[in-house]
């Protein structure tokens, strides 16, 4: 499938001026407790550069999803700071941040709330207040990117999980984000759909951070890997190296496979 996106990941600050070597995501000393008092993040720091593809792994309840929700300001209010393309994630910046960070949820059913695929993919651009022309162009392009151009008029409700997953990614690509954040992208897919997804993600030239339990996908797709457990980053480095450390993996409920 042809990739229409710019060939290199953009590295410019939040206001559009190019900045060489700027980190796309910077998280520093992030703490977070849910309203019921459960502490989910206990000082997370990480830095991801433009164009990097990074996997976030760890056992259930490690705080991965909680961290991802901070990246476009759906959760906030703890200590620490998050910066996206140099912009701090604060309330006045939120609408701009959300145009920059595309968040794909684990369950595509949560992401698709419109009757037709077209309307769903158009939601982001429409909400951004783009002119109709531009919206149409972007929807077509996003659907093209995920290889579902002929699905525009289908009802999302009737699609298979794998198809829904692709559409969910398209809903975010149509906003032309700089950073793609994915929560368990391969969960619930059959092997063929999973393979399609891996190829799609490999071809997208965007900065990417994906939480996952699928260690095989990590090995195949993500050169860098961050391990979280109990609200902390416990390891961060090249995937190939970390996967050799059997003890480390075992201590955090992971398996090399």
């Amino acid at each position, binding site marked *: 499938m042809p990739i229409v996106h710019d060939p290199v990941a953009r590295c410019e600050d939040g206001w559009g001026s190019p900045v060489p070597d700027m980190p796309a995501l910077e998280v520093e000393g992030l703490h977070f407790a849910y309203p019921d008092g459960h502490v989910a993040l206990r000082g997370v720091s990480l830095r991801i550069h433009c164009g990097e593809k990074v996997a976030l792994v760890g056992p259930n309840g490690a705080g991965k999803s909680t961290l991802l929700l901070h990246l476009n300001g759906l959760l906030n209010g703890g200590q620490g700071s998050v910066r996206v393309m140099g912009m701090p994630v604060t309330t006045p910046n939120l609408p701009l941040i959300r145009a920059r960070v595309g968040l794909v949820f684990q369950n595509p059913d949560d992401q698709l709330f419109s*009757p037709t695929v077209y309307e769903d993919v158009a939601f982001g651009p429409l909400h951004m207040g783009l002119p109709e022309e531009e919206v149409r162009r972007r929807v077509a392009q996003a659907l093209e990117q995920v290889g579902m151009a002929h699905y525009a008029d289908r*009802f999302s*409700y*009737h699609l298979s999980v794998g198809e829904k997953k692709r559409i969910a990614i398209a809903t975010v690509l149509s906003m032309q984000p700089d950073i793609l954040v994915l929560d368990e992208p391969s969960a619930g897919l059959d092997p063929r759909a999973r393979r399609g997804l891996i190829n799609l993600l490999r071809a997208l030239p965007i900065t990417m951070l994906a939480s996952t339990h699928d260690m095989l996908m990590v090995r195949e797709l993500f050169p860098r890997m961050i391990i979280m457990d109990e609200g902390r980053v416990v390891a961060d480095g090249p995937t190939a190296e970390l996967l050799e450390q059997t003890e480390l993996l075992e201590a955090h409920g992971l398996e090399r496979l």
Partner: protein
Amino acid sequence: MSAALLTHLWKEIVVPHMHIPDGFLSLPVALLFWVITVVVVLVAVRKTQQQLGERQIPLMGVMAAFIFAAQMINFPIAGGTSGHLLGGVLAAVMLGPWAGMLVMACVIIVQGLLFQDGGLWVMGANIFNMGLVTAALGGLYHGLATRQSKGVRLVVAGMLAWLSVVAGALFTALQLGFSGTSPFAIVVPAMLGIHALIGIGEGLITAAALAFVMQVRPDLVAVEAVRTGGGRGWVVAGLVIALIVVVLSPLASADPDGLERVAIDMGFEEIAATPPYELLPDYVIPILGETPLSTILAGVIGALVVALVAFIVGRLLHQRAAAA
């Protein structure tokens, strides 16, 4: 008061409240509505069981949870207010009026029992206002609109949803008035005015949700799929409620003392242990300001209801003629 504080007050205090807490209704009023409600809910339990059989338990339970959850879906209207769903008409349109009543009753029972959103002794009144009245109006849709074009059906469903909020508010206001908790002259126009606005959100969301289902699963909302005989009884019940709204809302604004007199004549005033009110000279209606505005609003409400009723009666006559 700062704009932010006003917005907050409007959002947190005015908008969500049709759930009457214990203490705000006099016992005779509360008990009267318990009796009505118990009878209707028992009939609804029986009717849905006849229609659904053993599927009733999971279907009604999950649908009640659905309405509860759907009430959380909001959309920003303007100035910090949001549109919300009450859901009575939606439930009745999708599942039929009896099932709609049962589902709404469950929602209100759980809200009162587990979340103290609405009292226990006044629960009968709350179920009546927010569940039975709204679902009965939803029954009108089945009586009449199912044979129309898609657009007409959506408009009717939306208008009924709007009307259901207004009607629920009117009954709430009347109960509060008869209980001596608030003078009719203030509570009726205030509740009607506010809910005429809130009802817009209800109407829009209901119509849009119905449109979604019609588009994605047309089999579910097709005429023959409607699970209940939405017969003439529902049309009558719905029309009666609509007429009550149309008669009482202008009356309440134009001649508030009239209701006062009704209350006195019926002897409620003694039970409620309140002396006759001395109305404010130029009475002030919270939020809405002075009387002319509320009178205008009541007029608008009346006009809209009349339009809806006229439309429905017209359709009804038309169908009769066509059938003959």
